[in-house]
């Protein structure tokens, strides 16, 4: 019998279509404004904080829909944004600066949908509002810094070994040393090669008694990688402080970092925070002062009181700064010979001199490391913008054991975890290769909503126009094509919701509109074929069978080539354009399914396998 699908085919189609409906469904529920509260620096959120927030909200009579702890975050949902904003201010005051209170929107779908993995589509920044930054690390500075370091290292090493040299200068991305005598050069070559294994040191071919030291390709890469990673760490740190829900900090290529902050409204502040430099200061501890009384306000002149980051204990430090963080060239955690955690610190030449000079007279005395960074206070300035303040905290107090130089270590750290944390903080406050914004795309929240509305209107208009045309032109079969078209939309939305990497953008919505227009093409091809077959004198069932069969390879070829264009677009495009490519590609696949398989099923079920005199086409 012609034009009959076996039962399993109908069932399979039913399963796919219902899955499409299921995963498209979360988009119908909309979203609730919410607060997302997490502890700074990966700390834990306790049930007591939840109670605190709950009480504060009740006291201030701010209605909320639900409050719970999930993924180590307190999540509070509200009915409208007004309550949400009010609640943020209240919560920030109650919790203080140890917690980050971020505004967010949370999908409002019922729990059973969430349990099966159903989530609404992710909206791009152009629809959601927010900031997209592309930042570039100035690698030339990072390399130059390394070169200066090499110069200082060579100078120190040659002096220590009592090898006389004539001149030491910069050369390419390395250094050049000239000697007066050949045997001096030979001794230096011998010695320097051993000490600086990471460098390539060779005799110069054009100049006599000259050594050239250059960084190997791998070493240059390593330096750049370090600078990039350092910047990413610092930016992550700062972004966390901005109190943005679901921020994104990601490397792009070898020198760039993408930062995306959805929903940020005060972009000027965001830029300020991202651009601000956290710094470090090494200071001498004022041993004569009594920390407890200093904390109550009796601070000796020439000293200041600070608090320990972890214990909260007051520490009195001299106002004079021994050294600032911009002399630090590297910091990492490791273990000493007794397997105790420690942090190794490298300074540049100048920093080494300063440190050496200071520690010479202060062996046995405590030295503190002070970390300076910017945090939102939760208060607002008179002009309505958020207030930020520099927060200075003591991250470490250590006793000076010996005269320190360019390379030293901090021991007596409780746990490897803490050593790691300290190294991270030291790096964050160290001089880094400067970073600058090379691309910014900010969309205000009102424009985002407007873009959604415009996109939706365009989709609805385009959709209705095509529906009307198909019914007018193909009548009965037009209805079938329209069912396929509607299912196609549902499937696109379902697949977009299901794929974690897919984001809906304004060009993406344009892509959906375009897909609607082009998806009918497959049906047009099939239907035109069927008409031709009928004109050629075939019976209805034969015509349907032939029409679908002969149109298939054409449809496949045509769609595969468009798919190629979509893939290439995805590969080169950024942000919104990628969104367009994704929707286009998904649309091609779903439209082939609906236009070929689904319409065939509908046709088979309605007219297939029985005697029909005339087709409504």
């Amino acid at each position, binding site marked *: 019998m012609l034009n009959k699908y076996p039962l399993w085919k109908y069932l399979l189609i039913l399963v796919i279509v219902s899955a499409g409906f299921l995963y498209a469904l979360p988009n119908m529920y909309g979203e609730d404004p919410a607060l997302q509260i997490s502890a700074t620096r990966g700390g834990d959120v306790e049930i007591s904080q939840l109670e605190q927030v709950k009480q504060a909200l009740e006291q201030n009579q701010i209605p909320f829909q639900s409050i719970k702890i999930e993924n180590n975050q307190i999540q509070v949902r509200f009915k409208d944004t007004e309550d949400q904003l009010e609640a943020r201010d209240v919560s920030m005051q109650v919790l203080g600066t140890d917690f980050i209170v971020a505004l967010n929107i949370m999908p409002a779908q019922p729990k059973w949908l969430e349990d099966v993995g159903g989530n609404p589509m992710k909206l791009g920044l152009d629809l959601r509002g927010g900031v997209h930054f592309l930042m*570039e690390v100035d690698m030339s500075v990072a390399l130059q810094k390394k070169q200066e370091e090499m110069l200082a290292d060579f100078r120190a090493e040659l002096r220590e070994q009592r090898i006389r040299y004539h001149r030491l200068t910069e050369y390419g991305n390395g250094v050049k040393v000239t000697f007066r005598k050949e045997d001096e050069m030979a001794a230096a070559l011998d010695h320097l090669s051993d000490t600086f294994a990471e460098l390539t040191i060779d005799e110069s071919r054009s100049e006599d008694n000259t050594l050239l030291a250059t960084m190997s390709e791998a070493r240059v890469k390593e330096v750049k990688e370090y600078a990039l990673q350092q910047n990413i760490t610092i930016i992550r740190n700062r972004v966390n402080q901005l109190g943005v829900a679901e921020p994104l900090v990601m490397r792009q290529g070898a020198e760039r970092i993408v930062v995306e902050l959805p929903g940020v409204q005060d*972009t*000027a502040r965001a*830029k300020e925070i991202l*651009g601000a430099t956290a710094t470090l200061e090494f200071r001498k501890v004022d041993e004569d002062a009594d920390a407890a009384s200093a904390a109550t306000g009796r601070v000796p002149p020439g000293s200041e009181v600070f608090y320990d980051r972890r214990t909260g204990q007051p520490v009195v430090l001299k106002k004079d700064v021994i050294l600032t963080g911009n002399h630090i060239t590297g910091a990492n955690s490791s273990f000493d010979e007794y397997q105790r955690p420690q942090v190794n610190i490298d300074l540049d030449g100048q920093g080494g001199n300063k440190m050496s000079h200071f520690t010479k007279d202060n062996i046995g005395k405590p030295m503190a490391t002070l970390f300076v960074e910017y945090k939102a206070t939760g208060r607002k300035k008179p002009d309505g913008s958020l207030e930020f303040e520099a927060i200075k905290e003591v991250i470490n107090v250590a006793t000076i054991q010996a005269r320190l130089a360019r390379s030293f270590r901090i021991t007596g750290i409780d746990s490897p975890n803490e050593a790691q944390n300290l190294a991270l903080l030291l790096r964050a406050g160290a001089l880094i290769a400067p970073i*600058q*914004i*090379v*691309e*910014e*795309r*900010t*969309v*205000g929240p*009102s*424009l985002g909503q*407007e*873009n959604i509305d*415009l996109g939706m*209107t*365009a989709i609805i*208009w*385009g*959709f209705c*126009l*095509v529906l009307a*045309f*198909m019914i007018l*032109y193909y009548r009965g079969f037009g209805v079938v094509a329209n069912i396929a078209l509607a299912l196609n939309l549902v499937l696109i939305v379902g697949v977009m919701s299901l794929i974690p990497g897919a984001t809906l953008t*304004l*060009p993406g*919505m*344009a892509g959906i*509109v*375009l897909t*609607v*227009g*082009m998806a*009918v*093409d497959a049906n*047009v*091809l099939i239907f*035109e074929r069927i*008409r*031709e077959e009928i004109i050629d004198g075939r019976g209805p069932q034969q015509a349907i069978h032939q029409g679908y069969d002969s149109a298939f390879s*054409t449809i496949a*070829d*045509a769609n595969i*080539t*468009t798919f*190629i*264009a979509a893939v*290439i*677009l995805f590969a*080169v*495009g*950024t942000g*919104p*354009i990628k969104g367009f490519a994704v929707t*286009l590609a998904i649309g091609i696949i779903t439209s082939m399914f609906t236009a070929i398989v689904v319409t065939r099923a509908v046709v088979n079920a309605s007219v297939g396998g029985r005697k029909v005199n005339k087709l409504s086409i």
Partner: protein
Amino acid sequence: MWFRFKNTINFMSQAKLAIFFSAVMILGSIASLSINGLKFGLDFTGGTLIEVGYDKAADLTEIRGQLDANGFGDAVVQHFGTSSDVLIRLAPRNDVKPETLSNQVLEVVSTTSSGEAEMRRIEFVGPSVGEELKEQGGLAMLVALICILIYVAFRFEWRFALGSVLALAHDVTITVGLFSILGIEFDLTVLAAVLAVIGYSLNDTIVVFDRIRENFRKLRIDDVSEIINESLTQTLSRTTITSLTTVLVLLALFFKGGALIHGFATALLFGVFIGTYSSIFVASVAALKLGISREDMIPTVIEKEGADQDALM
């Protein structure tokens, strides 16, 4: 039935006219591209763009005056979409840090007689990023064309592949040329649209080629151009309908999709027409002139050595 074409239309007799027409359009496009160039958007040139919205119709002269007084004399100020929305463009500058530039401009234009300005959009692109994008964009189109060439050559035949790629190059040149002639801004979304035009036009071309191949095998006609005419006529109703539905949705996009998507819709609208034309008159004519013949279309049967002998075991 509205788009039935009973009699075979002799498209190929118009080949000369089509070649002339296409040549004129391509030369015109190239001339305009080399003389006027393309009005590249911010994505490619770098610079700063700020869109602000006022409560009521904004007075552009006043805003220009304010910007001028604050050292932004080079700013281009225009309405965007509605009369209360204003778009301000600034060329890349060396003296101001890009991070702070947009904030300064926002401050300057935030209060006028038209009320307070609300920030709607800020776009800043560094000059180096723009340059890279230009390179990547050109590369993307080239890669797309080559990939398609390979696929079509693999699925059909090299003459068809060449014909389709010629048609695509034709479409891209003329679409981009139109943007140059009309002086419409060419930004990233337009580039996406041009790539979508490639996809669409190819779609059309493939459908036509598919029918030509089929007819070579099916029809007992020796005249190649007649086979092509027959195929084009058979697919003409489909070509018309698909173009029509696509144009319908593009019109919806053009009129309802907002100002941000205008360039995109324009490029595609134009591209659909030129793509439809090219699949008939460029791709097919090219295949014809390259000397396509029935032998190229019939799969050759390779006779296996010893196939006619009985198996030994």
